[in-house]
């Protein structure tokens, strides 16, 4: 029901992800080549049709170490734009071709196997050159800002007026939006937001309400100077057949490179769409049942982060404080028996 889209900011970034994937693949290929050469140089030499002796073993070991270095460069040090490492791989490929050609003359054990190895390295050289050229030519692809754009929707069995008035008070958001600590109204159409940031720190920003159509739509946007430029809107539509209200939530955040981008990514979670959907489910629970629903395995209610490390379905050791009981204005419908 939610459609996550991670959009590029401009046409040039549309395929910005691809070179990175190719780079990653080449990095792991380096690991794959380095491992047999360094762990079992003798067997590897035989496999590629070269007679093993002290000299060729030493060269094999050296090439293995070189492959590891390339891998480290591509996968870790130079990430996400391993231009230098890729060019060094191209140079390495040419050197390896030279070594193999030399071996053809002096230490050939099996002509077909050695020919295969030469063809393989030549193929690698072509791919590496292609990747290196691509990364060098279009550096902007990796650095251009991308937007986080999340859409999620849910149906709540409550009249539009009630749902709208709950959303109208931004102070209610932390009740069901897990990443928020507080939202305070600071003036006419102005609010101050505080969210849980990385390493226990808070991230704060001011926002303005950009649109308010009673019982239909609320939209907001962060003001100049926010660490994370973000905006959101929520639409309310009658669900057909008297089934209450459909809520359509849309959130956007700019994720430029650097610190602000990382911050945005943290705030919206690793799966922004899931987090938004969780938020709506919690909202639905609050509206329909009076509070966030807890189980023994998930005592704090649903959260994406929790799914990966569920505690066993056993009563918790500690008394769990009923967080939602402390907050006023949950607008619970109460029980029906």
């Amino acid at each position, binding site marked *: 029901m939610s459609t996550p889209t991670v959009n590029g900011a401009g046409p040039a970034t549309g395929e910005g992800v691809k070179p990175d994937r190719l780079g990653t693949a080449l990095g792991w290929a380096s690991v794959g080549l380095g491992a047999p050469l360094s762990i079992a140089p003798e067997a590897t030499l035989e496999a590629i049709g070269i007679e093993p002796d002290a000299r060729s073993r030493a060269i094999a070991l050296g090439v293995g170490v070189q492959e590891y270095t390339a891998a480290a460069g591509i996968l870790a040090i130079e990430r996400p734009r391993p231009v230098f490492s890729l060019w060094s791989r191209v140079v390495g490929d040419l050197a390896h071709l030279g070594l193999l050609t030399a071996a053809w003359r002096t230490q050939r054990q099996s002509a077909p196997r050695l020919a295969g190895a030469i063809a393989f390295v030549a193929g690698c050289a072509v791919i590496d050159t292609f990747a290196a050229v691509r990364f060098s030519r279009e550096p902007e692809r990796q650095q251009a800002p991308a937007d986080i754009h999340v859409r999620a929707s849910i149906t709540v069995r409550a009249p539009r007026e009630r749902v709208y008035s709950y959303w109208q008070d931004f102070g209610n958001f932390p009740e069901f939006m897990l990443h928020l600590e507080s939202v305070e109204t600071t003036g006419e159409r102005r609010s101050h937001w505080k969210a849980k940031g990385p390493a226990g720190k808070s991230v704060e920003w001011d926002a303005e309400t950009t649109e308010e159509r009673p019982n239909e739509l609320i939209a907001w946007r962060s003001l100049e100077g926010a660490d994370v430029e973000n905006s959101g809107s929520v639409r309310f539509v009658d669900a057909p057949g008297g089934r209450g209200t459909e809520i359509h939530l849309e959130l956007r955040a700019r994720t430029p490179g650097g610190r602000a981008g990382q911050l945005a990514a943290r705030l919206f979670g690793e799966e922004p769409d899931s987090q938004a959907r969780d938020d709506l489910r919690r909202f639905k*629970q609050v509206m329909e*049942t009076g509070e966030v*629903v807890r*189980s023994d395995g998930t005592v704090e209610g*649903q959260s994406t982060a929790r799914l990966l490390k569920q505690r066993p*379905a056993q*009563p918790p050791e500690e008394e769990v404080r009923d967080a939602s*009981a402390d907050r006023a204005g949950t607008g619970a419908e109460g029980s*029906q028996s």
Partner: protein
Amino acid sequence: MKATVFSGRNSVQVENVPDPKILNKRDAIVKITSTAICGSDLHLYDGYIPTVKRGDIFGHEFMGEVTDVGSEVSNLKPGDRVVVPFPIACGNCNACASGLFAACENSNPNAKIAEKLMGHSPCGIFGYSHMMGGYAGGQAEAARVPFADVGPLKIEDDFTDEQVLFLSDVFPTGYMGAEFCDIKPGDVIAVWGAGPVGQFAIASAKMLGAERVIAIDEYDYRLRMATEKAGADEVIDFGIRPDVVEALNEMTGGRGPDACIDAVGMEATHGHGGLHAYDRVKQAARIQTERPEALRQAILACRPGGIVSVMGVYGGFVDKFPAGAFVNKGLTLKTGQCHVHRYLKPLLDRIRGGEIDPSFITTHTMSLDDAPNGYETFKKKRDDCMKVVLKP
């Protein structure tokens, strides 16, 4: 308190765990007096249901005495004797409002896992994997019951536990399976599986006016109970007659049963040699989660235009689903976890009226401490085991 916890495939243990606590305002704590092992618990025990963790407390058929209630529960008070329905339902969402309690939209805090696998999430269920909410189950000395203002049925009559305990699951489940069959005078109903759900499906089909009910199983003691207690008119022992579809055709003048109930589910024990071996291998290798032979047979046996009612539990995906037969015969498939809440009072009335005494399925009563033995006895069908009731 003591509780039956999962300790790895084919293994449960009775361990000391923390006492249940009120986590939501509409919770109640129930001190359990009787709890049963369900056939669907065996799917957990055998390791075929995803997202089951070591330490999870099993059990979704239980009853007992209320000892504590949350601040928003006004219909129950400590001392009340209650039967707890296995689906957890809020009573406030659109699904609950239309009587689809097992589709409750709020009771599964882990709805996302289920949504990934199934598109939408069913309700939360006691002791039935984290995908179904991660709720502690009722094979324990006590349990937390969420939405206690909606689920538990107060028992004020002088019934024994065994007479009302099965209202928590197997009786309503079998009943719903029979109700799905839209039984009209003269209808012949075939029921695959003469376990507890099958027994109640047979008894319910008779209560709802079926002309003839045919029970299908391979265990003589189960078929005997089907005819002697549940009221089946005929049986097919597929250990002796493996060609079930042909046998049903013979018994119905070539028409086929008007409706077929699958009360077997994902771990069918039989099938045509090759196909069964194929299912077993794929299931053991965890490539497919089900061995759906009962469902396949039900579709092949059902008369054109008839109804296939699936009450057996399936968890994932099936192979060799006879879609051609299903479509070209114009069958209707009805299925679902039972919306127990809506059957509690009507079925209690039937017990009260003497139409049925559900206690007939109980074959073994054990102490909670013997739960591991109970699971093995039930799984291996030792000692003519039909239903194990545990007493904490």
